[in-house]
């Protein structure tokens, strides 16, 4: 290893790190532009959003709510603590 190699490596390092900062700075501004152009909009609150699976099969959230509350009553448990997820229409 001679001194020139060391100098080379330092030159390379300084420039490479500068390039990285340059590229990532460009990315930061690009992101800011993107976020500015397409800001986040909160989705409209769905009134009674139901799981798509059963609903598509003719069983809507109401049925599941009834079953859940019935079982919850018998079990003395909060309805938040469990979910019936596998009822399929025949």
């Amino acid at each position: 290893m001679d001194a020139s190699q060391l100098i080379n490596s330092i030159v390379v390092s300084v420039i490479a790190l500068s390039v990285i900062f340059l590229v990532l700075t460009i990315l930061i501004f690009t992101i800011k532009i993107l976020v500015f152009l397409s800001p986040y909009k909160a989705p409209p609150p769905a009134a009674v959003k139901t799981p798509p699976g059963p609903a598509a099969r003719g069983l809507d959230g109401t049925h599941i709510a009834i079953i859940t509350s019935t079982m919850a009553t018998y079990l003395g448990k909060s309805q938040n603590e469990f979910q019936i997820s596998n009822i399929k229409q025949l």
Partner: protein
Amino acid sequence: MDLTFSDVISKILSTTGFSSLTGGHVVMILVACTLIYLAIWKKFEPLLLLPIGFGALLANLPMSMMTSTDEGGLLFFFYQGVKYEVLPPLIFLGVGALTDFGPLLANPVTLFLGAAAQVGVYTTLIGAVLLGFSLQEASAIGIIGGADGPTSIFIASKLAPHLLAPIAVAAYSYMSLVPLIQPPIMRWLTTPEERKIKMAQLKPISQNVKILFPIVVTIVCCLMLPGVAPLLGMLMLGNLFRECGVTARLHETSETHLINIVTILLALAVGSSMTAESFLKLETIQIIILGLMAFCVATAGGMLFGKILCKISGGKINPLIGSAGVSAVPMAARVSQKVGSEEDPSNFLLMHAMGPNVAGVIGSAVAAGVFISLFGGSEPATTHAAIDATTQIVNLPVMD
């Protein structure tokens, strides 16, 4: 011609591995078993280090024709996927499919932390040159500080294929050691007050931004640093599969069975290059020491830039998230969370640290691109390699 009992027995004896077992084989078998041990019992990146260790074990059972250079052997074929740089980009396709860039988009300034952590790459490069490595070799060693396995393998197989095995092993090992390496440095460079800083909740990001981000990053980065296209392009394509909402099938395959298959092939191939001649050298020890240094300096670089951002932002950014800029997703972000909650259990830094964490992946890919631009395309080397490839392919034997 009659075969006598002694003929047959001597034939079998002459083809056992014992007949050509050397000390180098024995040491490498122990190294392989150590990797397997670390993977299974110490949970060091087991998805990579277990098959790497097993590949190394097979490669060092003598006469089994399982090294990466045994033409016609099983792992020779897998190794071609490393040599021609097909497998690391496919891993990155899966990584992109698994990565949520949301926290980065919500706080884009954390990209600077992913850039600052690359300082580890360059101090290591200079250190490696001081130890006598060539600039190409030093670059491949430095990229260990990028804390990104596929990037390290990609650059090593391009710039210094003879150092592939120690570089890959060092990269994955230190990634597993992030929870041990980083906290002391993080505590040493920050005050308790800094560590207690709570950050504002991240803004939500629109789906369109999440979709446009991988496309824009690909265009910007690959225009400036074309050599990074295979890695960064596949990373961003995987992320596009994830975010676009219309390619669920491709997203699922990319992040599960495709990345798993490629991981098995890649890790076995890397392991198969761990022969005594290539691994039991002074260089390996130097690489392992340099790799540790790379991780430490990268952590410090991220932390110090974190402190700068903290100052600039008027104390709104906790410098602890800077260490996550080394990538090592998601361990480094968890370390930020852990060190922060030690000081104040109600401080949740995890999501904030995910920003610099994924920024670190982009940062080291960009660093890789710079190296490829500088050292990647020299004409004579390509010609030489083409002749190499020709020779290898046309001499491919059927094993029998």
